């Protein structure tokens, strides 16, 4: 396959950045990241700076491979991270535009690499259980309804990739924050800190400068793990409960 790539190049956080056009050769069975690897080898051989992009597990669970491909976070396939996107999703001769995730709270570091530490700070604000519960109890002594366990697991599938922010017309981080609040609010272990957690995580989300959700649900469409906006409704409930019944 012969592909024309338009890639955002930016030397560093303060550089203004620009698009550059490259010709790349690819096989349909290559992953999108492998296609970029090959492009980078060519660039290195030519003595040029390779395209910087985040990647780690390459099996769809680490959430590193952040990029917007032809306007879609993680590319045009549903429920797919960029590393699991394959070149067979494109046609020979296609022109593909690759941009970094765009949000003030996730500034570009270099080329396609963005700083997602805002998510870490939202987690640090309350996305954990810190009450001392002693040694692990016998499993059957803390019953969890199946429905709650399923919903908590669905929320916990969030890999924190930031596609929800990238796809949101408002650059809001509500799908991420709500998934993290939901997973703990549904389980017994999360109950003691439930209210303080909701307030602290929402407050940190605001401090980071993310936008405000207007319920387009583009986040849910872009999420490679299929996190539902049911979680955003739950976060809103948790927030209101915490503010109204402290």
């Amino acid at each position: 396959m012969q592909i024309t790539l338009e890639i955002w190049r930016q030397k560093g956080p303060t550089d203004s950045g620009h698009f550059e056009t490259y010709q790349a050769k690819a096989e349909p069975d290559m992953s999108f990241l492998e296609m970029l690897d090959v492009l980078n080898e060519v660039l290195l051989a030519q003595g040029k700076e390779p395209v910087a992009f985040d990647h780690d597990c390459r099996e769809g669970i680490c959430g590193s491979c952040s990029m917007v491909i032809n306007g879609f976070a993680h590319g045009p396939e549903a429920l797919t991270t960029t590393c699991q996107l394959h070149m067979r999703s494109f046609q020979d001769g296609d022109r593909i535009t690759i941009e970094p995730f765009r949000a003030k709270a996730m500034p570009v570091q270099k080329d396609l690499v963005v700083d997602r530490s805002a998510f870490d700070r939202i987690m640090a604000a309350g996305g954990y259980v810190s009450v001392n519960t002693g040694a692990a109890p016998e499993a059957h002594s803390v019953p969890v309804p199946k429905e709650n366990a399923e919903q908590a697991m669905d929320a916990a599938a969030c890999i924190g990739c930031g596609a929800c922010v990238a796809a949101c017309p408002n650059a809001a981080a509500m799908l991420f924050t709500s998934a993290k609040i939901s997973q703990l609010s549904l389980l017994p272990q999360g109950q003691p800190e439930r209210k303080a957690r909701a307030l602290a995580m929402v407050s940190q989300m605001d401090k980071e400068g993310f936008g405000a959700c207007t319920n387009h649900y583009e986040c849910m469409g872009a999420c490679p793990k299929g996190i539902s906006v049911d979680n955003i409704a739950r976060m809103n409930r948790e927030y209101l409960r915490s503010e109204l019944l402290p």
Partner: protein
Amino acid sequence: MLNWLARVLQSTLGRKTGMAISGLLLVGFAITHLLGNLTLLKSHEAFNAYAQKLEDLGPLLTLAEVGLLALFLFHIVLALLVTMRSKSARDVAYRVSASTGQKTIGSSTMRVSGLLLLVFLIIHILDFRFKKLMGYEGSEDLAKLVHDRITSPVGLGIYVTAALLLGFHLSHGFKSAFQTLGLRHPKFTGTIQCLGWVLAIGLALGFALIPVALLLGAGGAK
């Protein structure tokens, strides 16, 4: 209490909650407004009698009007704050933007439809309420004033367009308000979405068809 309110209204979720509650209350107002307007289809006398009943409320009417104005301002100011926040949250635009198919025409045009409705609201208040309050000539027969305005070519255009804009605004706004208030469950979310469409189409057609019906001779037109 004031500190609490200030804190809640600083938060994006607090602001959205305020928009949702005020929006739903405004939907309630729009429904009563439409029901009142329907008297115009009966006769000018019925409409004037309805208007007089409202005037007879005296200080209660003033209170209701001030409350309504406050409700509109609250909804609009919160919308502006939330919009400004979101605009600054995406400081660099995408060169290529695509949709995963979730957003709708209604949801993507909320800000435009909201702003245009605000412009309409100002025209609408200047058209009738302001004239009545200032005792303009001809404002004693409110039914005639309204009839003449909304059946004139320009008036018809303004009022029918505004009705359709309201429909667009509600097609997203109504269900969105319930989501913001956390009222989402497989049991009733479908019903809320249906109700949202019924209200959006019902109110848009209701308001838009009144001038059309008047032109066709309803309410004993001249």
